[in-house]
């Protein structure tokens, strides 16, 4: 069975609010599926439906070939999850919280607690009550609870929330390793494309409950807009030369002073042969002092995608 997580026409309506709208997803074995969207896009509602915590208004979801419902208990042996900010029992220590998860998941191997604390660097905090943990360590404890039973499927809602940069890298490497070495299938939600793009093999972008883009990492690379950025002394004259040669050129200006900053060309021909533009300018007596190819930043791509789908990132 290749398809590990799938949804078909998944829809959830709360009163008049359409939280998830006809969402169909497919996540295959060993994939790290980045589930992206701004806050309130419907990511958490989708995850709750995948975990049987919320019933869909219509549509279905499957994990490991089994249709999800609140009663599908055996299935959760193979699924680890985080929904929103993880919380633990405040009066219990880190070790005790993990021991409780172990017992509820029927894990008899007691060394598993030490193993997962080692993986998540929680050993130092083993005897600290959960209420005294920092946000980052509380997040680590949440991830530890999701991984302690070595699940085949991980469904993680914003797992990097509250982690410091070092922690983000550690968790990213841990998840990559699980997918690569153990074939664990991971669905990970985030509102940050840069974070997701560093580990995801596939990406889906959701906005206002609707899937607006689904692509793999290779395709994402191709979809990022590229521009040839050119600088020089007389930018107006350089723009004129380039335009006369048949290229479309845009001049970026400083917002406050309207002073020209650089010239940008998006033509495929110019991007493939930047030396032709340089020759053109040199021959016209306007040698450039800056030539570089600039790739669209991931956040800009994310916002552009949402806008192209008729949405507003800030809505």
């Amino acid at each position: 069975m290749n398809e590990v997580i799938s949804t078909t026409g998944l829809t959830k309506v709360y009163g008049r609010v359409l939280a998830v709208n006809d969402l169909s997803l497919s996540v295959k074995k060993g994939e790290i599926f980045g589930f992206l969207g701004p806050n309130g896009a419907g990511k958490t509602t989708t995850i709750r439906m995948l975990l049987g915590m919320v019933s869909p208004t219509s549509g279905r979801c499957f994990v490991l070939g089994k249709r999800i419902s609140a009663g599908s208990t055996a299935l959760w042996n193979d699924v680890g999850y985080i929904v929103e900010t993880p919380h633990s029992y405040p009066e219990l220590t880190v070790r005790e919280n993990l021991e409780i998860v172990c017992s509820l998941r029927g894990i008899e191997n007691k060394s598993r607690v030490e193993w997962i604390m080692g993986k998540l660097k929680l050993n130092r905090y083993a005897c600290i009550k959960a209420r005294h943990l920092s946000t980052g360590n509380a997040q680590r404890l949440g991830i530890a609870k999701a991984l302690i039973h070595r699940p085949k499927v991980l469904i993680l809602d914003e797992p990097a929330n509250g982690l410091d940069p070092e922690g983000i890298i550690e968790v990213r490497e841990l998840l990559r390793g699980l997918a690569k070495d153990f074939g664990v299938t991971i669905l990970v939600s985030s509102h940050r494309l840069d974070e997701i793009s560093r580990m995801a093999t596939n990406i889906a972008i959701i906005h206002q409950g609707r899937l607006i883009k689904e692509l793999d990492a290779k395709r994402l690379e191709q979809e990022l807009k590229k521009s040839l950025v050119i600088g020089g002394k007389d930018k107006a004259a350089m723009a004129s030369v380039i335009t006369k040669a048949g290229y479309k050129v845009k001049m970026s200006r400083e917002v406050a002073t309207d002073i020209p900053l650089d010239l940008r060309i998006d033509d495929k021909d110019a991007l493939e042969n930047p030396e032709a533009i340089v020759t053109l300018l040199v021959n016209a007596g306007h040698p450039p002092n800056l030539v570089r190819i600039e790739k669209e930043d991931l956040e800009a791509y994310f916002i552009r995608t949402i806008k192209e789908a008729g949405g507003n990132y800030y809505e």
Partner: protein
Amino acid sequence: MNNTFISFLAECKKFFRSKVPLVTMLAVIIIPFIGGFFMLILKDPKLAQRMGIISAKAQIMGTADWPSYLGLLAQAVSIGGLIIFGFVASWIFGREYSDRTIKDLLALPISRSSIVMSKFLLVFVWCVILSAFVFVLGLVVGDVVDIPGKGEGILQEGLTVFVVCSLLTILLSTPVALFASIGRGYLSPFGFMIFTVVLAQIVAAAGYGHLFPWSVPALASGAAGSDAAVLETASVIIVLITSMFGLIGTMLWWRYADQN
């Protein structure tokens, strides 16, 4: 190991590491001491005169003897138990929502029904322990105060009434759990508990207490006078139906309601 038992052990760990057992134990300790204090006053009328308002209240208990004293304990557990046992149930269920740990219990290899059952089992076990503690401590306090008229038959009868009242009161904690689950925390069940305690007094005063589940334990304890301390089968059935409503309602809520 049975799933409900596994979950019960986990619930015990969470419960006994919290302050709730201590708080509820301290709350019930007061009951026998207050009863003993009343008996002491009743035994010594001169001291009762000096006590002013407290002695006036103490006279309500009647005479200083073991039947009155044991009746007082049964009344206290019937009325006070609604609050204390209700608090235990509201904490065991409501804390999962207040501490936002509920989501960790919803997608486990253990069914939600087993988890709910284990929580109810803990409510039952702890409330039985509290009740037993009140009765045993009550016996010690009664002996220390040297209440007259102790006899095996009296103790046996007092114990029977006390056990019945305790069990009826414990059974009524299931709707509190339902309110804690629907209200997602402590506030709704507290409001519900206060509402039922107040309403129980009004309904009992109106003469319909035997039909109102939250009045039944107090009536069975003789709170409305020893003549009224007759437990009708219909009243027991009403309490059982109310308890089943709370139990099944909570299970259905955990099973079918959206857990956002």
